[in-house]
């Protein structure tokens, strides 16, 4: 049993990876042409490495051992799924709303994150669209 099955029976990590893959295919990273960063996105214990290099995005389903990364965004599956609800509830509708409640964390060198903040917010909200579909 996947530990990311969570309370709703949805594999949150897989949902995230599918959404990120479709974002890469759709060229969404053209919005961030100068972004080069290694980002870890954590759903419970499942870590996805998202590598950005001059407008391109590559996904790795595991973070290789001793692999350096620039910043990490981590939350529990329940927090991510609440964030991705078709119409999220108050307090679960934004990454910072979740972090203020202690349900999401940001670590590392946050400069590339803050310099592309709306891009990352939109990117990480993409599973919301998949759940609507």
């Amino acid at each position, binding site marked *: 049993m996947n530990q990311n099955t969570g309370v709703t029976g949805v594999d949150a990590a897989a949902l995230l990876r599918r959404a990120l893959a479709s974002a890469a295919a759709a060229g969404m990273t053209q919005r961030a042409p100068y972004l080069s960063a290694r980002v870890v996105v954590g759903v419970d214990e499942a870590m996805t490495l998202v590598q950005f290099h001059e407008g391109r995005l590559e996904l790795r389903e595991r973070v290789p051992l001793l692999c350096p990364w620039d910043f990490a965004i981590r939350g529990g599956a329940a927090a991510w799924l609440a964030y991705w609800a078709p119409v999220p509830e*108050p307090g679960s509708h*934004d990454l910072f709303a979740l972090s*203020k409640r202690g349900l999401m964390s940001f670590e590392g060198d946050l400069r590339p994150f803050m310099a592309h*903040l*709306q891009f990352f*917010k939109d990117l990480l909200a993409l599973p919301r669209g998949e759940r609507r579909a």
Partner: protein
Amino acid sequence: MSAPGFEPIAGRYVRFEIEGEPCRVYFEEAGQGIPLVCLHTAGADGRQFRHLMLDEAITSHYRVLAFDLPWHGKSYPPEGAFDREYRLTTDLYVASVRAFCAALELQGPVVMGCSIGGRIVLQLAARHGGEFRALIGLEAADFQQPWYDTAWLNRPDVHGGEVCAALVSGLVAPQSPRQFRDETLWQYKQGGPGIFKGDLHFYRVDGDLRGKLTGIDTRRCPLYLLTGEYDFSCTPEDTLRTAASIPGSQVTVMKEVGHFPMSENPAQFRRYILPVLDEIRAGASGQTP
């Protein structure tokens, strides 16, 4: 002069001193009746209130005015102040509001402020309540817990407009129409460098009003507090806690709006603000501010 495409909103400049400093302040207005002075959020400007100025249910009874604080919107910094670090303080903010009302010779205005404007409304109620017919705080609380470091708002390696807008974008409710969400955020993208951060000096450092709101007489000056359920900066709980310390204050938690009710979802906000304005108007005949 009139043309079919003209809106009823008129804008002009007024000159007056704030704490002894000459200022040229831009404001917009529409309507006739009881003066309703609107205070914009941190890092934004008076355009946030344009929907109220286009609402005949309001402008047929209220003269709605919204001014851009110096350093904001179309109000330049005071002469000779460009090289100074901008920092809003409680005293400066109170002086700005009172100076605007005096310059326009407003008699017994209602003041409605949002966010930092909501916070200063509480200070006005505590120290100058007798000057106002009523006070309305939107997204107002005596204090709220910070949720990011304001150093991000003004540094050379991060675009200030982009990061300010992106930070506050989460304060807009998901139900708000896209056009109005974008307009609300656009003002943050247009703000001058360090201005949002300077406003938050009042919010974060200088304007902690916990324990300082004693003596507010809501029988003399009614106080209304309205907060959106999606506002996680000033949460409904923050407003309810504040209201609990002010006897007679009236609280409404607004559904499906966030931190910018008047600009992000004017139709939804209208449902909540019209009854408040009607109540103030009904009580106005018996009151002498």
